[in-house]
């Protein structure tokens, strides 16, 4: 990786881990993970199922909130504090700034997920007392959750490159919700005709397909996830992230920062 991108990424990471909001959200996620033990005890015969569902959902939702709330401020905060001018007055290109910010935030989220995963497995061990081979499937769900975070990060950065933090949060969260219903959207598009079909199909392919990345209930039922799906989802996340980041670069290159 370009050294300048590395510096920006490490600074972004340092800045993010100093953010108190981050710790609050991680604490909430871990709390929910622990609470799943008690919720599981209330259920009959599905303690593991409830626990895995609730914990992975907590990791996913809190991670998305962290990604959005940190991601939307990455560019606007730098402009507000005028630190962006200091950075760009050095031999740093705008695209390097965007890409560096992305890797910094992505790194933060991967580390967060790692800690939350420890919470998930710790709570699971408390409930089931010993791990089985099928518990390894939880790692696949966590991996897909990280892929989801990468897409969200890139989208937050894309919106942050041209909009205010509040609007960026609204846009990013809306896309997260719409993307979670991507299957329905494509199903709807396939039932329409003519011009509406073109519009609906275009929209269905443009929004991120988070539904394919959500295998929480599959994993909770200890059903296998195919290697092909892992490969295709990985490629999809990489390309979608590249698409959103290149959009952010295109906008940020032309943005008047005066």
């Amino acid at each position, binding site marked *: 990786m370009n050294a300048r991108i590395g510096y920006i990424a490490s600074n972004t990471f340092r800045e993010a881990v100093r953010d108190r909001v981050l710790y609050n959200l991680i604490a909430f996620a871990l709390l929910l993970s622990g609470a799943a033990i008690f919720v599981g005890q209330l259920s009959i015969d599905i303690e593991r199922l409830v626990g895995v569902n609730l914990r992975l959902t907590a990791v996913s939702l809190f991670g998305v909130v962290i990604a959005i709330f940190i991601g939307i401020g990455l560019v606007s905060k730098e402009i507000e504090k005028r630190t962006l001018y200091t950075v760009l007055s050095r031999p740093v290109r705008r*695209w390097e700034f965007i890409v560096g910010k992305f890797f910094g935030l992505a790194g933060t989220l991967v580390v967060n997920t790692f800690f939350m995963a420890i919470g998930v497995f710790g709570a699971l061990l408390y409930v089931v007392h010993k791990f089985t081979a099928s518990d390894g499937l939880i790692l696949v769900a966590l991996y897909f959750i990280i892929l989801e975070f990468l897409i969200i990060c890139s989208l937050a950065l894309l919106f942050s490159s041209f909009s205010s933090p509040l609007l960026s949060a609204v846009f990013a969260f809306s896309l997260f919700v719409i993307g979670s219903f991507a299957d329905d959207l494509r*199903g709807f598009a396939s039932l329409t005709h003519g011009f509406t079909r073109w519009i609906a199909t275009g929209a269905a*392919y443009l929004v991120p397909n988070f539904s394919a990345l959500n295998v929480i209930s599959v994993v909770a039922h200890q059903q296998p996830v195919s290697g*092909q*799906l892992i490969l*295709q989802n990985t490629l999809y996340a990489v*390309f979608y992230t590249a*698409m959103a980041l290149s959009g952010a670069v*295109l906008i940020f290159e032309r943005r008047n920062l005066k």
Partner: protein
Amino acid sequence: MSSRKRTTVWAAAVLIVSMAACVVLLGNIDRIRPRDIVEDSLYINSPKLVRRASLGFDGLMACIYWTRTVQYFGHRHYFRERTYNELAPLLEITTALDPHLVPAYQFGASFLAPAPPNGAGQPKRAIQLMEYGIRNNPDNWHLYYDLGFVYYTELKDYRKAAEVFEAGSKVSDAHPFMKVLAAQMAEHAEDLATARMLWSETYEASNENNIKQNALEHLRGIQVDEDVTNLEQAVARFNANNGRFPTNLWELASAEHLPGVPVDPDGNPYDLTLDGRVQVRHPDDFPFATKGLPPGYKPGPLKFHSKG
């Protein structure tokens, strides 16, 4: 080329390539994922929970669920699927959210009651839905009409159908035809003429294209059933008189003094098999016909017809 221009060109190229790759990958992902997960997903099964989760926007939620129900049924019906697992829960949620959404009961019953692939084959759940609808909309005679229809067409429970038509006829503003139907059910329920009268009335009374279309398809099916019954009786008479089956329908038409070779509602001549059975030439054109179908016939994709 300046540095900024170069970056722009690169970023645009990455954007386009990534977009194309995403479209291709989405297609691959759809193929890999199990089909029923994509199509058969109902996130919440409890009508009460959906109602509470709608935060007071239950009218809007009912519309959304109704739209989803229509999409679900329409898609599976078009491809002649034989399972409609989510249909009843979707309808129950829709009507729990808005108990006055009358089309959900009317269409819902016609989705639920008929045997697959024309419907979900769940007449009892259709009846539960209609009874819930009548409890919430006791002044709507159309609901009695549709409920009576389910008893008549799917369960062949003519006594119950007569009772429901009779109850519906007592609702203020009820169509006078309801009384006629109640009487007809009591006396001539099994006649094809009664079936024809019911579907004709449905066709004439409705403003909804889908209901009209459904009624028309049933009328076409009834016509085929009647033609095949009459022709097979004629074939049996011919066999009794001549000790053999007619070699073709011309011979039968001549023996029976018919004006020409009998044709189906589309104008295609019926076929006569060597063992004396009468068959329609294009069975897929008559999804509701119960007679004249080739042995082991499996319905193909759904076709629609205009009134001819």
